[in-house]
């Protein structure tokens, strides 16, 4: 197989890698914000249970925050287990657990679901750290000026949070470019899966070298885009 053919075949794979990358960001950046809200939720439906001076059990129950607990568990599972394994669970799970037959189209859907769920967990923690680092005076000024809570969050807090967390988002974006290769775990034919296939059938390492170059260029572009984004928020401090 000529170098040209390899490059053309891998370029097709690259488009699929880019699709995974883009859809993952489109899904997980907003989802992560909702997850962060859940993680910071102080909702405690049993709060009324513990009047002053009640016992330890009642105090424990009264302090129980179901939404926060659930979201914490979700985040720790997503961050504590390999993404590859999560992809396999999403892909094979419906069949093994519920005997739902897996269609051919589901492979790509499973990749996206797995990536979005995983990255939303990481983004949620980044959002949370940014939101919690905001000085309380910003909320107080907004409150005294009469801004509603949604206005305060979306107009006053979020733009400042985005500026603060952009460097961490950049890290995740760079990691995601490389992580798209994990879709090989469920044989989705993105660039890395193709490179492996061509390499073993033709006994050559050239496809890996080409794929490596493609990943590197992809990341150079993303690093540039993120740098521009950071610069565009440089007008305030």
């Amino acid at each position: 197989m000529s170098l040209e053919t390899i490059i053309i075949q891998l370029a097709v794979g690259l488009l699929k890698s880019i699709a995974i990358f883009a859809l993952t960001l489109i899904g997980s950046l907003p989802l992560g914000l909702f997850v962060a809200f859940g993680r910071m939720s102080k909702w405690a439906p049993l709060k009324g249970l513990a009047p002053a001076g009640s016992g330890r059990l009642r105090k424990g129950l009264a302090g129980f925050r179901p939404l926060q607990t659930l979201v914490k568990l979700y985040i720790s599972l997503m961050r504590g287990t390999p993404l590859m394994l999560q992809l396999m669970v999403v892909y094979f799970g419906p069949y093994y657990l519920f005997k739902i037959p897996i269609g051919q189209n589901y492979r790509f859907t499973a990749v996206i679901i797995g990536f979005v769920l995983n990255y939303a967990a990481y983004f949620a923690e980044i959002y949370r750290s940014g939101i919690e680092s905001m000085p309380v005076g910003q909320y107080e000024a907004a409150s005294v000026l009469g801004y509603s809570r949604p206005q305060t969050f979306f107009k006053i807090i979020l733009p400042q949070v985005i500026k603060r967390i952009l460097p961490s988002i950049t890290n995740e974006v760079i990691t995601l470019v490389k992580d798209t290769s994990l879709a090989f775990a469920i044989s989705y034919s993105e660039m890395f899966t193709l490179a492996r296939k061509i390499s073993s059938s033709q006994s050559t390492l050239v496809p890996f070298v080409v794929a490596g170059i493609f990943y590197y260029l992809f990341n150079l572009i993303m690093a540039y885009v993120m740098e521009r984004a950071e610069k565009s928020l440089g007008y305030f401090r």
Partner: protein
Amino acid sequence: MNVLELTNIRKSFGSLEVLRGITVTVAKGEVVAIIGPSGSGKSTLLRCATLLETVDEGEINYLGDYVVRTSPEGRVQYSSPADLKRIRRYFGLVFQNFNLFPHYSVIKNVIDPLIHVQKRDKEEAYADARALLSKMGLADKADSYPYQLSGGQQQRVSIVRALAMKPEVLFFDEPTSALDPELTGEVLKVIRSLTEEHMTMVIVTHEMQFAQHVADKVYFMDDGLVVEQGTPDEVFGKPQEERTRRFLERYAPTAP
């Protein structure tokens, strides 16, 4: 007519009683100074009045519009969120550390709440904001961002932001404490100019001479209580209470 009545306000943080039954009234056009040692509860009182904290007991009303009442049985009842939203328009607050919005330019800091909270006409909001900024000597800073300004300029912007909302009463919590000494003058001058327009103000300050000169009424707070109140001449000139005298000796050795 009283713009503000705080009656028998009590507030604790855990077991720490910070306000132990405070009554303060502010008449229209009056300038009230609140002085007292660190930790006496001055900020907490302003925060209760501006709805940043809730009280444990007592009553607050602006122009007869109740924020909170306490029933004879001691049940504290805040007004509905819709009422509180309306009542918020009666007051403004100038913070010690300005709390400007860093991602908004000076003019945007001022007009954004006018347009998005008060739903005022955009052109009119801009015109008002520009007029106020020039009056405070900030006309050329309209398009700057807060980080490009000195502390004194930032504080003047935050005063403009509060004034533009046309509050009935303006609170100041140590408006010059975060400033370098050479910048306090310009901020105090701005506040003094507001007294000439009969702006109703409640000023917590450690600037004793300033309080003495601009205030119509002075409250001396210590340990969660109003220990002494009166005209500046009474409180600074012939304080009746030992605690007031000791405080004034410590904080304002130059005061008569």
